[in-house]
């Protein structure tokens, strides 16, 4: 479940008085949500990490401007959205204007899409729920691929499937999860 917004407000109130432990707890409670938000709006893992860290640093400096009305996460996601935009711009600026590489292409597409937050969406919780609906074998495959970070050839050996077929299976699983998340958003 997403963290209780009132509990987060209580932590923020303590963080404002200089209680660094309370702010650490805020980071631990909400980093997953911010991370999931960023994942949908950038094109590589290092941008995600950059955005998440910058979001919490900015939030720390702006704690006094937050009005405690059980809406800290949306407030934080607003900050994250700004960091997504500026980080994508910064990375594009570092590349030549005529850069035709795949990475540059994806950065441009993401920047054009604009990182608008979705109101009231639980970013991390939805994916966990969708994962739980998969078959055990599918969950085991994803766990090996992402939890244990095994290579495709190691996975092929473990699941006794050719590499090509395994790649297709992984693609289908991600597509299933995507549809599940979209269905959850639509019903919300």
């Amino acid at each position, binding site marked *: 479940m997403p963290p209780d917004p*009132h*509990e987060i407000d*209580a*932590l923020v*109130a*303590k963080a*404002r*008085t*200089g*209680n*660094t*432990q*309370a702010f*650490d*707890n805020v*980071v*631990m409670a909400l*980093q*997953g949500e911010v*991370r*999931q938000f960023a*994942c*949908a709006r*950038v*094109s*590589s*893992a290092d941008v*995600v*990490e950059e955005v998440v*860290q910058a979001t*919490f*640093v900015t939030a*720390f*400096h702006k*704690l*006094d401007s937050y009005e405690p009305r059980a809406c800290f996460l949306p407030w934080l996601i607003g900050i994250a959205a700004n960091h997504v935009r500026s980080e994508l711009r910064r990375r594009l600026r570092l590349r030549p204007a005529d850069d*035709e590489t*795949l990475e540059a*292409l*994806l950065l441009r*597409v*993401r920047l054009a899409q604009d990182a608008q937050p979705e109101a009231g969406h639980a970013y*991390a919780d939805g*994916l*966990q729920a969708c994962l739980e609906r998969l078959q055990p074998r599918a969950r085991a495959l994803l*766990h090996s*691929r*992402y*939890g244990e970070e095994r*290579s*495709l050839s190691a996975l092929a050996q473990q699941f006794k499937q050719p590499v*090509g077929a395994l*790649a*297709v299976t*992984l*693609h289908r699983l*991600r*597509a299933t*999860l*995507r549809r599940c998340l979209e269905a959850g958003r639509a019903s919300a």
Partner: protein
Amino acid sequence: MSDQRLECLREAYLLGTLTPAERQELSELCRHDAGQRDALLAEVEMDLRLRSLYAGEAGGQRTLAAVRHLLNQERDSGMQRTVRAVSRRTHQRHGHRWVMALVAACLVVGLGLWLRPGQPPPAALGHVLVANGATLQRGDSVQALSAGQALHAGDSLSGATRVAWADGSQLGLSATGRLRLLPVEAGSTLSLDAGDMDAHIVPQPAAVPFAITTPQGQAVVLGTRFVLSVDAGGTNLRVSEGRVRLLASRGGELVVSAGQQAELPTGAAPRWIDATGVAVNNPVDAVVTGTWERGQAPLAPTLAVGLNVFVGVEAERAIQPAYRDALAAMAPALLRFARGEQIHDSASHPAGWLRLDADGGYSWDAERIARVVPPAEGRRSELLVSIPDFPTAWRTPDQRLRPDCVERFARLCADLVHVVDRDLDRRVSRWEITRGTDVTYADDPEALADLVLRCAAAMQAVKPGLRLSGPAFARCDRQDWLEAYFARIAGRLDYLSFCVWPSDGRQAEDDQLWDQAEQISERAQTLRRAWAASGAPPVEVLQVESALHNEAPDPRFAGAEAGIFDALVMISAARAGLAASCRWNDMDGWFGAYAPDGSPRPAGEVLALFARHLRGAALPCTSSAPARVAALACPGALVLVNRWPQPTRLGLAVQGADAIPWERHVVTDSGLVAHGPTSLPRQVLLPERSITLFVPQP
């Protein structure tokens, strides 16, 4: 390119193992085909999400370490920038390097003290709500407190005052009270050095609890209401909500829960005390206080304890002995017929009351109705008959009544009155036009009002003076909607009815569901307010449906949980002055008060007890820990509901109850147990999750 080849390229991209040639291949593909590019981005997104999710706690720790590092870096560079700026100005003015060095050193020390790692400027811990002539000591200066004044760590307050904490908690200090606000590193939030303090502390994060030091020890608050007193003899704690951990300076601790009281004598371990301050071996978990009087017999029930007929709508099941016995045992004061399937075709559904005529219209199956609606002779219950919904063929896709079917539906309602009350002489006490249609007509209260008015006129033409309501409201939280509805229909309804189906279903914790049972009075209040706004004279309000929730299966329907829910609903309804409270339902496999085999469930036992003994109006009665033990006193019974998952040792202080014998009935998961008449005990151990009725004997 084959799909499999494409998937292999994408997977290699995600894994970072593309060869330059493969990268070029994928790049070309994405550049010229927007669909492929979007597909790759979708894969990237889900890949990143899964990586993040599986990184879990370890990933969070890495982020936290990085954030801390960044904040510390900023602090260091901020201090260096400040020192450089000061040194430049100092050098320009004086040109003395030693002065520059001295000032810089002072700044480093000063800023180092102020800017602890990653710390924003200090903020107020709270502010004064009511000053009352109390004083504030800040450093060496003592000043009168003023309302609104900000409070900081290190401040000391003396005298009667009320303070709001930054997180919404509130503290009240007595006239003899002395309180200090402690800095974060003290390990406590406050120090109460003398006097009394009452507090309402909002739920605190487990990692950073709210703690109060006293001369004898420490009270660690876990989100609660309590009173803490300090005098020369020790510290006294009385908790009315939540829990507080009481720790002695010399070792030993007690966790004091709602309703309990404990003391911390100077130099001794903490110990339990009773309401009069006498030390006891076992804590009293809660105290129920009140006044009881028998009243003038015979007493009529002010709340009709009712039951929704579900199985009994089916003719074959209604005549079974087990069903009849169950109904006789529960003896509800009100039977409500409002099963949705009543408006189904009797030829195709065992609960259907309607017959599809040859011309495509509907008429009522009088023979079926005669078999399921009990005759007036020998019947102990009043009847409420609902026309629960519109026949399926007459509905629009959004489940409203088709405009061209309004007259036909009104005639159908009138025909039912004719069949049941005229032809069959069932003497129905109350009629209800639809249930839950306030949700279907959520954006058009006027249309629903016009429809109900039309039906009411048709029904009253058949039997003038019949008592009508409609619909049974599913939602009572939209006062605007209700006011618009009542503005159109006020004066034409004889009573109001509403349903209670707690939200969140199977996922909800017991306490969440039970709390919603206790919100009935608020719903009734909203209904009454909206009705009053129409200017019509007050009418009776009935709560006509309630169940733990609406998501079967859930074993709690057959357990004490449902019995407790029902008991809390009826207690709340009695306190709110409602005319009836009806549970859903009689005997089906999940919701039934009785199991299909004819054995009573806890909810059935509760209904039978309440129907028999809830007599007369509610008397003054309060529980010191209502979230743990709910209580109701009336001339017919003293009701105690233990919501707690453990037994509760309850103190009873009920004036007027001493002189007579009381019979005790206890409903738990295991069923009903009755105990012979005794005097009302001063202390009683309520079993975990149980409903106890003390019934006065003649």
